[in-house]
């Protein structure tokens, strides 16, 4: 089984979001970077499939030179090698999908499964996976919370209101997955060190002429830390119980 996981380097936004002066980007001076929780689950799922049945997990990112960090993280989780489409530019969903399709076609052998996060953690366009599937004429199922492969087919569980829809598609296929699909592992120290020795195929790419224009970014109201100090010491206990009861967990 050959599986491709596509991931995106995004800032970790635990605190208040601050925009650059031109309102074209997020101020990332203080921020760390990661991949989205959806993508983490995608990589974990791919690694588990290959651990159980053999094969190869390839992880792909389109992004700046620093995106190599995220590819190494994925390889520390068990991916075997990486493709880095390197570009400092910002790419829209259509252009991104185009570059990924080209990279897939350049591979010596086709992939049996191509995994995306349901949407990226920063721009949230929900498009790239579907566009790639369309371009490659492959079936695509989105928003998966369950995935089982057997006899050349994928049983896909998609979360819907009050239940799950089940789709059964032939491989090769494209899936986009959501956090909760599995519980991703933490990388071990030897896995981290192994990741440093795994191959990364670095391919500089140039974006096509933009067809979308970003006007400006706006930080929505109510962003930032929502923590409230309820008190300290034993005196805080009644207040904690009240909150737990309100949440229906006590």
């Amino acid at each position, binding site marked *: 089984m050959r599986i491709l996981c596509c991931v995106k380097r995004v800032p970790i936004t635990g*605190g208040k979001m601050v925009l650059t002066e031109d309102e074209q980007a997020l101020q990332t001076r*203080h921020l760390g970077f990661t991949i989205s929780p959806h993508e983490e689950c995608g990589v974990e799922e791919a690694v588990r499939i290959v651990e159980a049945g053999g094969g190869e997990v390839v992880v792909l990112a389109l992004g700046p030179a620093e995106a190599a960090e995220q590819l190494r993280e994925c390889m520390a989780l068990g991916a075997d090698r990486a493709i880095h489409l390197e570009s400092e530019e910002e790419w829209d969903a259509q252009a991104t999908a185009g570059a990924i399709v080209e990279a897939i076609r350049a591979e010596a052998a086709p992939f049996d499964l191509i995994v995306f996060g349901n949407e990226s953690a920063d721009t949230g366009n929900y498009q790239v996976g579907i566009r790639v599937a369309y371009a490659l004429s492959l079936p695509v199922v989105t928003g998966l919370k369950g995935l089982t492969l057997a006899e050349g087919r994928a049983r896909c569980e998609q979360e819907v209101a009050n239940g799950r829809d089940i789709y059964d598609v032939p491989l090769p296929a494209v899936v986009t997955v959501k956090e909760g699909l599995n519980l991703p592992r933490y990388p*071990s*120290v*030897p896995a*981290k*060190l192994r990741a*440093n020795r795994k191959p990364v195929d670095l391919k500089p790419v140039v974006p096509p002429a933009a067809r979308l224009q970003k006007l400006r970014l706006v930080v929505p109201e109510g962003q930032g830390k929502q923590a409230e100090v309820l008190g300290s010491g034993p005196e805080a206990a009644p207040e904690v119980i009240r909150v737990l009861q309100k949440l229906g967990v006590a």
Partner: protein
Amino acid sequence: MTETAKLPLSARAVVIGAGIVGNSLVYHLAELGWTELVLLDKGPLPNPGGSTGHASNFIFPVDHSKEMTQLTLDSVRQYREWDVFTESGGIEVARTEARMEELRRRVASAKAWGIEDTRLITPAEVKELVPFVEESVIVGGFYTPSVGIVDSLRFGTIARERAQASGALSVFANTEVLGIEVEQGRVKALRTSRGDIVTEVIVICCGVWSPKIARMAGASIPLTPAVHQMIDVGPVPHFKNTKGVIEFPIVRDMDTNMYERQDGSGLEIGSYAHRPILHDPEEIPSNEEAALSPTEFPFTQDDFTQQMEDALELIPDVLNDESVGIKYAINGLLSLTPDGLPLLGETPEVKGLWSAAAVWVKEGPGVGKAVAEWMTRGESEIDLQSSDIARFYEHQRSREHVRARAAEGFNKTYGIVHPGEQWESNRNVRLSPFYPRERELGARFFEAAGWERPQWYESNAKLLDEYGDRINRREAEWESRWWSPIINAEHLAMRDRAAMFDLTAFCVFDITGPGALETVQKVSMRQMDVAVGKVVYTPVLSPSGTFKSDLTVMRLGDEQFRVVTGGAHGMADLKWYADHRPEDGTASITDLTSAYTTLGLWGPRSREILASLTADDMSHEAFPFATCRTIELGSLRVLASRISYVGELGWELYVPIEQGAKLWDLVWEAGEPHGTVPAGIGVYGTTGRLEKCYRAFGFELDADFDVVEAGMAWGRVKSPDFVGKEAHVWQRESEPAAVLCTLTVDDHTSRSGVKRYPLGREPVLSRSGAPLLDAKRRRSYVTSAGAGPSIGKHILLSYLPPENASVGEELLVEYMGEQYPVVVATNDSTPVFDPENTRVKS
């Protein structure tokens, strides 16, 4: 009870920063009787987001520095008292023989500072205590059973709440400092996001943010935020049945600059091995913007790769297990200073503005207590001289200097640092006018207060032949590091003929005006109302009669006194004198350090040499000991002061700094026919001094000992009042608890047959190997050590209990894990060389 609603209009003192230091400080201030205290933090409580919140919270008490060890031991006492200390034991492991030697040195420091329970253990014993350590990669360990972890946030909360409960303190979280109002050099008010508070005392306990807050008042707190990387792995199968937070001793992997510390089911792995990663206080995000806390920066994986390899070697049982994952990884910020020591005390720039910064969790409560004592009583029980924020010269507060030294010091956090070790970065900042001459003479420069100062001269290597067997060669690499036998040759040439010394690093300041006498009388223990032209060497006492400094004062006029003191402590002395001027402004103080250079000339030929350059009468009768006057040497008018720190006839010669080179050339030429040599500080500060048993501040003289114990209570107590007088009089009337003695080493031969020479700070033991403890529970240790080339013996100074302080008493000194026989040579200020002081007074 974490917050009071309304900011008061005024306060006795405002403490900014509710980390381990600020919380501890307000508690101790309240305990010492201060009320109307305010504690502010811009973050929420109990964890406002500073370095305390992400500290690894473990404490290894042993340090080579007495001051840091005392602060740490006091902190442990306080943590234990409030039940937030969990003893785990700790082992510093060695991967190399050089490190084992260092660990032996640590055992000695532990004994010198009274930590009795430490011992060296074998790799097998390490394995027994910490089963997941791979014993084949280590050669041994230094085990301290009293190592433990603390809950520093809990301690802070208890401290703060106790001060609140006493009614002395109000606390305001989420309160940002906007400005500090200063009038005529004094703190007037604090501006905050909640309003203004009128106050005369502000204490900055803001950790990595401290420089930014100090700048609001025009003061500087020279530290830089720096990254300490840490990861947390787990769950560790070895810890499966662990009930508490920690059951296994903490391991410090000294040679890789790393530690491994159990945290429940996980293991924290921290490092001081990565490249120095320095930040600016302005770069730190706000609490709101920070993803974690403001001082937990995103982890930079590449900096940690080698550390993972190293950790894997030491604890493969844990880390090779693929189920043990890296769950958390941060670049945590901590504070680094140019010399690695905290920044405590009132800032020299602004009265009433105090700093308690660059303090780690291990010494936090001790610092809180000591600074509170200093603020309320004018001195602390633990001597804070090395941490005094007044110690820095201008250039040492510059951003570049701070960053250069912090970067250089960072990787020495677990380093093997020789007591004579020199900094490499940002050198050649202060150059004396003699510098070009000294370079030509092959001077080996050591740094003193930023000055480049010759320690010895390679051009004197020819003297080694002249003195042959009288020069000791040191066989062990450790003792010959930062040392040369040439020092001993220069010493002998000085005793035989004469030697020139570059003393430009002296700190020199004048106190002038109608209130000048009152000022110097108040600060100096000895009589200052002397005839113009007298030079007085005097102790400077703390209120409790211990040593604040020792220095020399020349009376140059009725209303002019010139203070000359060592460079290292000069800035703190300057502040101490400035702080004791009369309120009416009748005394001025002028720093002349950069205005004058000092050339020392000592040795039996020095009178002839100077006489050949001057028409002035240099005879003993005309120019007696302990006097000064202006003489003409060639075309230069020179202030000559006849005193000596090396026990020889001679003078300190002061000229304006631009005339220094001319002075050097004159004396050099006149000295040549007499066989004069240039000599370095190796002679001035060690060999010459120790043969005369002269005491040095920071070595023999500190806040742990008094004038009587130091054997310096000669003469009558002067009648005018001075700081520490009452205590001093009482000390004179009581029996001293310790006596400063001079000892010599009887046999240097180690078990391996190599001769070893203690360098100072070693424990002094009875002949049966028992520690010596005086009535004030102080251990006997070597305060200074060095060669005595003229007496052919290695000399040690040490305070001994009176029962051991008899001439001829046989004792031991422990050095590098072995014990050497020593004997008491003198038990007062009588020198071992020229006991009658005939040379000085000839």
